[in-house]
């Protein structure tokens, strides 16, 4: 029986067949990388290199500023040729450290194995995770060491590994679970050493049968991990929905998962943690899915952080047809790109190249017919149609009353709307206004 978070949610077509059988490939090393300093949620880090400086692969180039922040490392050896402002994939601007390839790789291609992590203390492991710039790779990019630091007085008894990958098109976590399952399991052991939990679950959506089977075989009688098959449904991979589906616990609206004793980590993040601790490698590359009908060869690629989108597309033999949209991330929560000159960051899980095959006109909206489909799709129990009407009529207090700030912007409401009303888009705007007008005053 597949577990699920409840009756609500949506069932978009998943398009995963384009890449789910394709093994992860390495990309050519780009001649120049553009590494943004803002790649995570939290304070922007301070740049610690100068123009003209020679850096090694994996060298710290921007240092975390405060606890909720993350280090950034050079993904290639070379020379810093510029420090400039540049648009990143989220549409915002960030300082970018430009490094030209020169010198010898000290991490990539070397088989460094440090076996001594078993003897390391909890604090030493956490420090290494922090030093090596690990952030949540599922898309939220929250610094991992913060999530793993349990404050005094709180008790965590459950660790959930998020392999749901509920966004259509994306298959990078799926491939990682199949190709790097041993690494994943070792990473879970490292996490268990830090957290010391009673239950460990690996939650995987039922459309990844091969991954479920492989992990079940590998864990059988060897590890106390439970592999949980989840119903294929969006947003199954959301932290709070995953916790509800697997443990039945409900995270209060203004609390964190750790308040109900749960820590959730994404599959990619766990593997990055393993590589940091065991292979002594900072977070300088990640696996992304390049897919969509506009790309000649859809692929799963291991990409150096700082590689430009156009170089990744070149790696997949370029465009096939006239391109309408380029999306970084998944189709439900990803960002459209205005050009192909933004670099890949830690939070990019995929590049989707869409032609008229997938493109849908978002401007063709009509009037609300009160069908309530948005309500039955909202996994967070909100009433999108009403909140939309409140925002449009500037009734911000009312929107607040109806829980607009609890919206996770998963986009299920806008997906389900037959009148094609931009619901979640309105909420983004409304949340911004409410933060400025109401919450800041209080």
């Amino acid at each position, binding site marked *: 029986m597949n577990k699920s978070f409840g009756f609500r949610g*949506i069932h*978009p077509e998943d398009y995963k067949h384009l890449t789910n059988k394709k093994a992860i490939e390495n990309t050519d090393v780009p001649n120049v990388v553009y590494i943004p300093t803002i790649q995570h949620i939290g304070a922007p880090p301070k740049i610690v290199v100068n123009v003209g400086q020679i850096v090694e692969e994996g060298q710290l180039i921007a240092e975390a500023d405060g606890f909720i922040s993350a280090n950034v490392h050079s993904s290639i050896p070379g020379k810093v040729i510029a420090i400039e402002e540049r648009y990143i994939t989220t549409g915002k601007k960030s300082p970018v450290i430009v490094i030209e390839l020169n010198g010898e790789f000290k991490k990539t291609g070397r088989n460094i194995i440090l076996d001594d992590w078993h003897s390391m203390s909890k604090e030493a492991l956490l420090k290494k995770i922090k030093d090596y710039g690990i952030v949540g790779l599922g898309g939220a990019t929250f610094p991992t060491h913060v999530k793993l630091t349990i404050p005094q007085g709180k008790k965590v008894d459950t660790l959930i590994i998020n392999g749901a990958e509920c966004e*259509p098109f994306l298959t990078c976590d799926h491939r990682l679970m199949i190709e790097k399952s041993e690494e994943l399991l070792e990473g879970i052991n490292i996490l268990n050493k830090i957290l010391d939990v009673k239950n460990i679950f690996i939650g995987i959506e039922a459309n990844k049968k091969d991954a479920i089977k492989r992990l079940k075989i590998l864990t059988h009688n060897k590890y106390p991990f439970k592999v949980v098959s989840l119903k294929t449904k969006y947003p199954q991979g959301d932290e*709070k929905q995953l916790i*509800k589906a697997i443990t039945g616990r*409900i*995270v*209060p*609206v203004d609390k964190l998962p750790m308040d109900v004793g749960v820590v959730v980590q994404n599959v990619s993040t766990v593997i990055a943690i393993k590589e940091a601790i065991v292979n002594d490698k900072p977070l300088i590359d990640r696996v992304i899915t390049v897919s969509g009908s506009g790309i000649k060869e859809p692929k799963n690629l291991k990409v150096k952080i700082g590689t430009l989108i*156009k170089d990744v*597309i070149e790696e997949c033999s*370029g*465009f096939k047809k*006239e*391109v*309408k*949209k*380029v*999306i970084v*991330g998944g*189709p*439900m*929560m*990803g960002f*459209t*790109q*205005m050009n*192909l000159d933004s670099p890949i960051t830690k939070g990019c899980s995929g590049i*989707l190249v869409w032609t008229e095959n*997938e*493109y849908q006109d*978002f401007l063709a909206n*009509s*009037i609300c*017919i*009160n*069908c*309530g489909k948005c*309500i*039955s799709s909202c*996994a*967070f*129990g*909100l*009433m999108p*149609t*009403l909140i939309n009407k409140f925002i449009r009529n500037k009734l911000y207090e009312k929107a607040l009353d109806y*829980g607009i700030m609890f919206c996770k*912007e998963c*986009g*299920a409401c*806008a*997906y*389900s*709307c*037959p*009148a*094609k009303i931009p619901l*979640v888009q309105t909420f*983004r705007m409304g949340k911004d206004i409410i933060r400025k007008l109401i919450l800041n005053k209080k």
Partner: protein
Amino acid sequence: MDNKIEIKKLIISSSPHLLNTDSTKSIMWTVSIFLMPACIFGIYVFGLYAGLVVLVSIISSILAEIISQLARKKKITIDDGSAFLTGLLLGMNMPPSVPLYIPIISSIFAIVIVKQAFGGLGQNWANPAIAGRVFALVAWSKQMTTWQTPFVADSLTTATPLLALKSALLERGGNVNIGPIQLLQSLPSDFLRTETTYLKLFFGYKGGCIGEISIFLLLLAALYLIIRKIITLEIPLSYIGTVAIIAWVFDGTRFGLGFFNGDPLFHILTGGLVLGAFFMATDMVTTPITVKGRIIFGIGCGIITMLIRMFGGLPEGVSLSILFMNMLTPAIDRFIKIKPLGFYPKKE
């Protein structure tokens, strides 16, 4: 390929980028198409004049929509299928031999007064087809309760099962000590005596409105629309369920059979209950937006329908009950709120 050319054409938008393929238009047209078999069956049973009634009703709905949108200086939206659906449902809710001016005026009332005067699609306070039918029922009660025997073009004498039942009970003063089916079979009418069986009621060999007689075809269409998630089950189930329970518990008293001896199946198979519950009470615009609200809506419809059928002057109460609950919908939506996931009342 030269990337430079492509860059100029990239479209920027806020997520989600994937949308459901169902649209208001596709929903309206799908419902219309799947109502067709039951409608055509009605025309087959009652003759071509019944087809003319439906056709006139559809055309006048569409014309009324065009004219009122022209008058309101709005974009003409007859392609969204809502005016067509209103006309079709109204036509299906007409007795087969009704004079043509009735569907024409009712359509105009439904579209102009009920729908467009309040702001068009999405703003109407009641299901236009229901409001149009109730309007006709009040304005021309004689013509609207004149029925026709299946396959007999000119006979205007046959009553619907519900009407015949009501007058028989009035005549005999209740306490007949037999159920509705047997009572109808005991009447002098040849047609009712031989043709009143559950099976014939189910397949639609009976008097009634053009589109309501074939329960079988209506249920088939509803099944598909439920699978396609165009209509949800909350209202039909709670509506028909309530009717069935009330009929079973209380309706026996009308026949002198006492409590818990009613005939729920008879009530489901007669009148416009199936057409109303699956296709008219599920109109998205005029029903509550939450599941809980819809269940309340359905139960309310069921109670009013049975009150009218058992105690009212009219034989049938489906359209009145839906109209009444339509009017209560804003109140239901105001009071039924959904609790956000993980929400708890703040301690003062």
